């Protein structure tokens, strides 16, 4: 199949390569052509041209605005893609933006799925991403073989936007867990107890978690090199708190975590790992 890929960063590049290795013809477009160097793919001059040549196009970019501009902007996918073709957006964006873009593409009978992922760069490289999908079941069925090249746990959550809601929930839980791990490490250190031993002891009990395992380890070693750049979690928390606001629900823990992330950004640690939330606690 002719498959397009836009957004060839840390996540997008290994994902695109998996698709190509599975035997698909890969077409790419990038704002900076240098970023696609060395890829076994045909470079297109615009998203519209890429759209003309592909049945399915993946996007993996940063913000709602980026997805909007690639899909609906001048020379965007909407100008090239044929009726029945599918956009699979793997970016993490606002649920209402996902719904809006899907509706606009739908006016031209172009299908869209929101399919944000969890699992980080390592998950992208190992093709073990969790993929949470919003959109029509029949459309998902058509692109499922492609998604299976990228991840193992693929869940159809609901209609357009539902995948992004699930991703917001994922980020809420994950970053709150990082904050909890940081607070535990802070308490242990302040009480004069060896953090490494505490983490080791907890790993066997009810508080054991992947976050305590991975991020706790980084905190113990004070290795704050990313990992996951904290600025991306900060960006996602803007989406999380926007979504809770729109739904009129109280999420007091997420609100506090959001403020700790704001403090982290203020310290200039946005390109460090989110385990830097420990360093924010050490400021006070």
């Amino acid at each position: 199949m002719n498959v397009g890929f836009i957004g060839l960063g840390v996540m997008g590049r290994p994902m695109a390569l998996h698709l190509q290795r599975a035997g698909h013809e890969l077409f790419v477009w990038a704002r900076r052509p240098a970023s696609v160097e060395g890829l076994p793919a045909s470079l297109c001059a615009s998203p519209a041209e890429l759209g003309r040549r592909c049945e399915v196009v993946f996007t993996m970019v940063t913000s709602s605005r980026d997805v909007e501009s690639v899909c609906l902007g001048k020379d965007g996918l909407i100008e090239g893609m044929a009726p029945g073709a599918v956009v699979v957006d793997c970016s993490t964006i606002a649920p209402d933006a996902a719904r809006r873009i899907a509706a606009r593409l739908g006016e031209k009978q172009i299908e869209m799925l929101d399919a944000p992922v969890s699992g980080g760069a390592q998950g992208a490289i190992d093709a073990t991403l969790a993929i949470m999908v919003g959109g029509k079941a029949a459309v998902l069925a058509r692109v499922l073989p492609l998604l299976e090249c990228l991840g193992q746990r693929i869940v159809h959550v609901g209609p357009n936007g539902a995948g992004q809601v699930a991703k917001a929930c994922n980020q809420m839980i994950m970053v709150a867990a990082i904050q909890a791990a940081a607070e535990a490490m802070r308490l242990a250190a302040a009480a004069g107890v060896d953090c490494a031993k505490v983490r080791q002891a907890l790993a066997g009990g009810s508080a054991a978690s992947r976050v305590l395992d991975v991020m706790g380890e980084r905190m113990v070693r004070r290795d704050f090199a990313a990992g996951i750049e904290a600025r991306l979690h900060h960006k996602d928390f803007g989406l999380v708190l926007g979504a809770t606001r729109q739904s009129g629900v109280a999420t007091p823990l997420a609100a506090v975590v959001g403020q700790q992330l704001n403090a982290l950004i203020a310290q200039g640690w946005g390109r460090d790992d989110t385990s830097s939330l420990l360093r924010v606690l050490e400021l006070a």
Partner: protein
Amino acid sequence: MNIGFLGLGIMGRPMALNLLKGGHSVTVWARRAESMQPLLDAGARGAANPSEVAQASELVISMVADAPDVAEVMRAVAAGAKPGLVAVDMSTIAPAAARQIGEELAAAGIDFIDAPVSGGEVGAIAGTLSIMAGGSESAFAKTKPAFECIGKNIVHVGESGAGQVTKAANQILTGVGVLAVAEAMAFAAKNGVDGSKVREALMGGFAASRILENHGQRMLDRNFKPGFKSWMHEKDLNIVMQTAHELGLCLPASAATAQMFNAMVGSGLGEEDSIAVLKLLERLSGQA
């Protein structure tokens, strides 16, 4: 002075009326034509659109709902503006949005002042609003005679956006403040102590405030009629939290307060006064 006024809602209508009373010649426009009638009856001239208002005016004031509305009417104002026009927006919008609108108008040769108000409908009718202004000194000087018909405490805070920054700070204080007073009242009640006596005692000390005085009394009277509706305070706190997110600014108390207001809007208290946050606390603590 020839003054144009755009947006004649709960706040805009009495403000425009006070400009007429102050002896100014006022041209008005509102999205819904029927809201123009009371102003026309009082001697204002009506216009078909914001551009027409701008053509007839030396000063144009907008009082609308949200940033996109301000941007839209100001673009129309720019299209009809005569040289030397000063544009003033008195709505509450994000500081970043105000700065951007200011830049767009400056590119069209129009001076812009952001001048949100505090004091509510009562202050708008009485002409006693607090006005916090951002923009150039010279534009503020041209605007001041109009402000004096509308408000009492008029402060030129700084450059473009500074008025909205001040209004956001005002909403932090009133939002966190009303929650603090509600918590104190709920605390007294759950302890079986008379809230009105607590309020009376505290009004003599360091915790005395206008919010404890006015809002506290209305909580004791269980008078939840707006005043200032919860959903509007929620909107304003969202401006605060968005700005904090963009700047990298840690505001834990505002964040907690914004969550309470989210829950109010989501649970049907949005149309009540912001003191209804007391009802939410009572629900959470089994006091309802």
